[in-house]
């Protein structure tokens, strides 16, 4: 099992979608931490606590982007990825973005 703490391993101020938006974007989090961890571990736990807010574009790009950009299947992520947060709303959002990206991908194929 591999643990990623957004606060300890990434930033207290995650925000934005693309690396061009700002220094702590969802794209950077996905490409630098999330994707490598998911490629090398069977289980990855992402702890979202401690950050000063995210913004939907950060979460969508970080997690929805796993399906859209990095080739992960939603079923694979259900098996490998676990989201930990004091605020259940974030966990729900992450899975909503993953499932929406999977649906979108199916439609475009």
């Amino acid at each position, binding site marked *: 099992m591999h643990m990623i703490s957004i606060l300890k391993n990434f930033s*207290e101020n995650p*925000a934005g979608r693309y690396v061009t938006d700002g*220094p702590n*974007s969802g794209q950077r989090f996905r490409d630098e931490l999330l994707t490598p961890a998911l490629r090398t571990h069977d289980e990855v736990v992402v702890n979202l606590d401690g950050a000063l807010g*995210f913004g939907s574009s950060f979460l969508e790009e970080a997690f929805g982007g796993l399906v859209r950009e990095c080739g992960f299947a939603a079923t694979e992520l259900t098996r490998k990825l676990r989201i930990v947060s004091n605020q259940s709303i974030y966990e729900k959002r992450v899975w909503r973005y993953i499932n929406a990206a999977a649906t979108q991908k199916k439609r475009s194929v």
Partner: protein
Amino acid sequence: MKKLSHKAWLRQVRRSQRTNRLSLRLRRRRRLGGRISQVISAPEDFYFLNVLARRKLFSFLELVKTTLAANIRVVIDFEATRQLHPCGTLIFLSHIDLWLDKYPGQLTCRYPEDPVVEELLQHVSVLSKLGLTSRKVVSHERVKHWLFHCGTELDSATYSDLTKSTRSGIVHPHKELFADCLNEAVANTIHHAYEYPFKNIPSPAQQKWWMLSLLKDEELFVAIYDAGIGIPSSLRRKPRFAEYFKVRNYNDARLIQAAVGSRWTSTQLPHRGNGLPEMLEFSQSLEHGGLSIWSENGGLSYNPQIPDKRNREVRHHIDQRLPGTLVLWSIPFRKEQENAHDFDS
């Protein structure tokens, strides 16, 4: 070529007459070898939401702009200024940045007469930007809770003092989403405000967002502004929707409503990013306060206190065109001990 209405034509004629007069004055002064500068009085009230105050504020901004464009130095005189509200002040602060970038060394000011106004203008860096030294200690109750931020990118660390100091005091069932909404509102600016080229587009260094917040009487006010293309113009230029809007001829307020998306999602009309819809969604669970969005000649306000949900959204028309987009947010706040300490420090 676009046909001008009589009113617009008159406005253009007056503007060009004013520029000609200023240029003539400038040439005369140059001939006489004098130093060319003009003192322009700042309005008494920097307030956007009041029609009369807005008219005066916009006339003042236009006069400064025209004078600078005529290559005449401007000295802003704050002697008459008595009231600074976040909405009007934020528009003014953004203009200061844009003017200083476009006309370096051409803009200065005189100290205000009112000590609180001076303290506030010092606190938001207007005096130092305009070349005056800071004479006050920022301590007044009406000043120290103002926070001013701006930037060209989305680095939420820039305004983390606001999110940290307010996160537990906001009265809302999902108060943690406040910071998310702020991030998305700024993201909106970065993705959409300067998306298309337009007349008088700021230089890349000034393609900014500006944010001003104030905690007052258990209410948190947040104003966010960009000097971008404006919501209506950006929607009209989106290729996918240009035809749709051409046929329907919606006014600016209706286009803002479309961008916010509250009543439009079923029609598949465009969202201009997630920021505004998320701010509106957040505002729908507020006990009081509200949200308003202003851009070009339109505005949309949302008041959660109105009992009939259908009447909570109101569209507005504004005579004076606001360049860019202004978002005003008012959120109830309980100043608990922890927050009070954070804010005071």
